[in-house]
């Protein structure tokens, strides 16, 4: 229902407390950060953008943990494939 896009904060204007400039693959837009409730933001942080508002700050540690889980599944799959290849039909003779 709701298109939310991750964007990287590239600039926090010193004269506005409600805005931050974000970059999405080289495209930039000012987004409203009122909903982040004063969470400290720095250039290099990532936020989720929806209709011009930052809704949430993205947690890199959580993102990494989830990717490690996926890597793990990938590795298990590779191992299984390898095991399957090794247990192939014995050469006749």
């Amino acid at each position, binding site marked *: 229902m*709701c*298109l939310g896009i991750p964007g990287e904060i590239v600039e926090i204007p010193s004269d506005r407390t409600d805005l931050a400039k974000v970059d*999405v*693959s*080289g495209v*930039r*837009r000012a987004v409203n950060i009122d909903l982040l409730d004063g969470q400290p933001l720095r250039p290099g942080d990532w936020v989720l953008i*929806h209709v011009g508002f930052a809704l949430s700050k993205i947690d890199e540690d959580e993102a990494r943990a989830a990717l490690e889980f996926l890597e793990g599944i990938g590795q298990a799959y590779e191992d299984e494939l390898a095991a399957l290849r090794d247990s192939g039909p014995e050469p006749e003779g």
Partner: protein
Amino acid sequence: MTSREEQVLERIDRARRRKARVREEHITMAHGAGGRATQTLIEAVFLDAFRNPLLEPLEDGAVIQVPAFTAPGGACARLAFTTDSYVVSPLFFPGGDIGDLAVNGTVNDLAVCGARPLYLSAGFVLEEGFPVEDLRRVAASMARAAAAAGVAIVTGDTKVVQRGKADGCYVTTAGVGLLDRDTRLGVARARPGDAVLVSGPIGEHGVTIMLARGELDIEADVTSDTAPLNGLITALLQATGAVRCLRDATRGGVATILNEIARASDVAVVVDEDAVPVRPDVRGACELLGIDPLYVACEGRVVVVVAGEAAEEALAALRGHPLGAGAAIIGRVAADPPSLVLLRTAFGGTRIVDVLVGDPLPRIC
């Protein structure tokens, strides 16, 4: 499949085969977006009124046999003829303006017929109050574009309407060109086994215009890809005689062109998402706005269908030209399912790429 389901599907197919009908009482913006509504309008209103064998294929231009003249080699000369109107807003945008857009657009419509563009006309509808300085800029830009494409603007027309009755300046160009080769091109000529190519990264013009309107407050360094394609297309046609179809992917984008080809040729077009060139910032803008680059307009990109065995030759010919440096083989033609465009996604799945329904608009969902 149960018989009840089959009955329902048959009913739908019957409804589809019925003549196109415009349901709306008034013209809406969707009728100009290049998608299904535009197609319906053209078929139900214009084709119905003007029907003739030259118009019927609904190509980018008509190819006319001219018995009184003979082309080099003694064959009956063939003339390509086309027209297009330009109502772009803003009139000046990064990478171009309404002037070079109008010249390049008509040059390209002739070039994709396989013709050598020769002469253009230019009609202007000007709004009372439009700055003469801006008109000079547009005219100068048209002159430069015509020189670059090797065509001459040989006739024209000017009308002025009251303030508020038009948006600054509209331009209509028409053009004629000669077919030097005995090339037979058309959307109905794609065959299973053919390869599908695009001459460069897609969606740049459409994204540039969307951002240049300023309403979205998005900054990017994207510029319009507007360019004359006749040189590129000549290089391609010289390199291989196996080209089946050429279309410039304007309104409705590459997806719309591929659907026209799939339908007219009764084939499936299978595209590899990974292989479709899209600049990162065009992709970024599209992600942010929730639109699909496949539907976004280009003004200097040609979609090429060529016999499978000539794909590499065609690719090399395109890449050998400055305007085709970013060319890529993006897919192939298959027999089944007919009339359908399929996308093999980078994620390893398949989806159907439908005809554009309305304007590609920013969405939240």
